[in-house]
Structure formats: structure tokens, C-alpha cells
């Protein structure tokens, strides 16, 4: 197909919508990355960690009594997670604050980095979210065993239920307990995938319509407007899902430290 009046050649990309291609992993850093199987996902994880650490380090370096903007932002972030951990878990929450803080800002940075064009959201891979959720789950189980001992296993039999139902109720309770990391990871992963697929779909509509000539050029504005609104929605979803992950971590840890 020859270029049209605007000098565009939109051919292959305009006929099919490849909504899931954006989640494929590709080696980065050339030869070295290909040898190490180092894809954009761990690369952006490192970027996320560096960004969060740089934000905190540079923000807190002045150590001013009256904070500047960046220091105020860093202090607000600290207080926000600290209050969440202590309010939800109780006084023991202080011990888990670094863990919850790391988790929240790692996920938040990952969600927001994924919104940058040509970037990649590593939280859209279930391998990553399930890994984080299993980390939370194992920590909660270990804390439960440490604080409650063997009484922890008594929770799998509901209070007041007749003993005859125990063979049915105990497996259901155990499965319900085991499903926590699964639902925790699916929630984050599904939200991120759904958001990015929607962005891709409406962007592809724009390209398709732009291939239809002058009328298409006018109509193509519609999906662009929708994409702008979706970007705002994704900013909300990214923060909300990081918050949900962190608050559920706190809730599970509260149950773990409760006697």
C-alpha cells in the first residue's frame, strides 16, 4: 500500500488488534541481556526500586525541620504506610512497616512505570504478582506459627460447629485459607492486564480509523479522547490496587499476630 496524503503507511498494524503482544518479554541490553535471559520485566523492577530509593534518599537528605516539597512528599508517604500498618495490625504493626512500605511502593512504581508509553508493567504478569502474594502468605503463616503456636491450626475448625461436620468444614476452611494468595495475585494481575488491554484496543481503533481517509481522521479523535480518560482511570487503578495489596497484607498479618 502506498503512503496516503499524509505520508502514512498503516497496513499490518491497522488490520488486526494485537492486544496481548505488549505483555511479551524481550531481552534487553543487547547481547548480554540475551545471554542472561534478562528481559524488560526485571530491568523495570530494578528501575522501580531505584526510583523509590532515590525518592526517599533525595527527599530526606535536607533533614529540614520545615520540609521542602520533596521531603514533605517523602514524609507523607512514610506516615501514610506507617499509619496504615499500625492502625490495621496494631502495635505489632511497627515491626511489619518496612515490609508493607516496600511492597506498596514496589507495586505502585511498577503500575505507574507501566503507564509510560513504550514501557512495560511488570505487575501485569501473574508470575510476579503470585510471587509477591506467596511471599506475603508465607510470612503470615510463619508469624502465625510463631505468635500462636499450634493453636493456629485450631482456626481451621469454626467455633460452635458440630463435630460431625468437621470432615467437610476443615477442608473448606483450609482451601479458603490457601486461596488467599491466589485471589490476592489475580486481583492485581487482572486489573493491570485489563487496563493495558483497554488502552491498546482504543489505540488500535484510532489507527484503524485513521486508515479510512478524511472521515476516519475525524472519527479517530473519539478513541484518543477515551484513551485520555482511561489513562486517568489507570492512574487511579494503579494506586488503588497497590493500596489494596498493602491493606490486605496488613489484614492477614493482623490475623497472624492476634492471639
Amino acid at each position, binding site marked *: 500500500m502506498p503512503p496516503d496524503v499524509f505520508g502514512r503507511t498503516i497496513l499490518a498494524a491497522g488490520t488486526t488488534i494485537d492486544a496481548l503482544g505488549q505483555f511479551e518479554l524481550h531481552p534487553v541490553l543487547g547481547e548480554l541481556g540475551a545471554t542472561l535471559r534478562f528481559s524488560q520485566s526485571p530491568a523495570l523492577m530494578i528501575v522501580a526500586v531505584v526510583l523509590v530509593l532515590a525518592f526517599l534518599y533525595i527527599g530526606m537528605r535536607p533533614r529540614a525541620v520545615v520540609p521542602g516539597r520533596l521531603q514533605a512528599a517523602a514524609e507523607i508517604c512514610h506516615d501514610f504506610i506507617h499509619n496504615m500498618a499500625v492502625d490495621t495490625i496494631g502495635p505489632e504493626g511497627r515491626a511489619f512497616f518496612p515490609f508493607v512500605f516496600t511492597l506498596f511502593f514496589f507495586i505502585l512504581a511498577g503500575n505507574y512505570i507501566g503507564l509510560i508509553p513504550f514501557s512495560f508493567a511488570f505487575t501485569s504478569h501473574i508470575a510476579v504478582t503470585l510471587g509477591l502474594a506467596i511471599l506475603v502468605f508465607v510470612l503470615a503463616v510463619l508469624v502465625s506459627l510463631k505468635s500462636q503456636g499450634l493453636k493456629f491450626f485450631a482456626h481451621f475448625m469454626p467455633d460452635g460447629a458440630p463435630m460431625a461436620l468437621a470432615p467437610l468444614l476443615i*477442608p*473448606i*476452611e483450609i*482451601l*479458603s485459607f*490457601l*486461596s*488467599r494468595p*491466589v*485471589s*490476592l495475585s*489475580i*486481583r492485581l494481575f*487482572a*486489573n493491570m492486564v485489563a487496563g493495558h488491554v483497554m488502552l491498546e484496543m482504543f489505540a488500535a481503533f484510532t489507527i484503524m480509523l485513521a486508515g479510512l481517509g478524511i472521515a476516519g481522521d475525524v472519527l479517530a479523535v473519539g478513541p484518543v479522547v477515551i484513551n485520555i480518560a482511561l489513562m486517568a482511570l489507570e492512574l487511579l487503578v494503579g494506586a*488503588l490496587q497497590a*493500596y*489494596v495489596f498493602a*491493606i490486605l497484607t496488613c489484614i492477614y498479618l493482623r490475623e497472624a499476630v492476634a492471639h
Partner: protein
Amino acid sequence: MNRNDSRPEPPETPSSFDDRLKGARERQGLQSARDTASADPLDRAGWGMMLRAGTEMIGGLAVGVAIGLGLDHWLGTRPLFLIVFAFLGGAAGILNVWRLVKP
């Protein structure tokens, strides 16, 4: 000129400062906005609640099916444990949703 200079200053206790700050915020229309924003987003967002209920149910079922398939693979009894644990997993999923929405 400062408004505070014209009236007798009460002793500067934290609570009186907090009260005056709260009053100032209310006059500026800041307090009410903060109060609504501080409600728990988990309860507030119906969309998020729906997604949460859905993932809780699917999570329970997925764990049940995975355990059933694993036991069948190990013991060679396919599809006995798959059927049993699919039902148990579904029940666990319903239990999760009930825990989520119960009053």
C-alpha cells in the same frame, strides 16, 4: 495585623491547637472533603468490591482444582479427587465471598 493578637491566647495545648486547626479547616471547606476521602476504599468502590468478590470466588475454585489435579496425578485416581476438590474449592470460594460481604 494578626487576628490572634486581639483576643486572649489560651494555653497552647495540643488539643486546643487541634481544635482550632479543625475549625479552620471546616471554615475553609477542607475538613469535609478529607473526611469523605478517608473512608475505606475497599468499602466505598462498588466496582472494586465486585472485582474482589469475583477474584475470591475464582481463587477458591482454582486452588481446589489445582489440588485435585495434583492429588490425581500423584495417586493415579483421575478424576476422583478433581471432582471432590472442585466442589470443596467452590465452597471455599463462596465462603470467601461470604466473609467479604457479611455484615
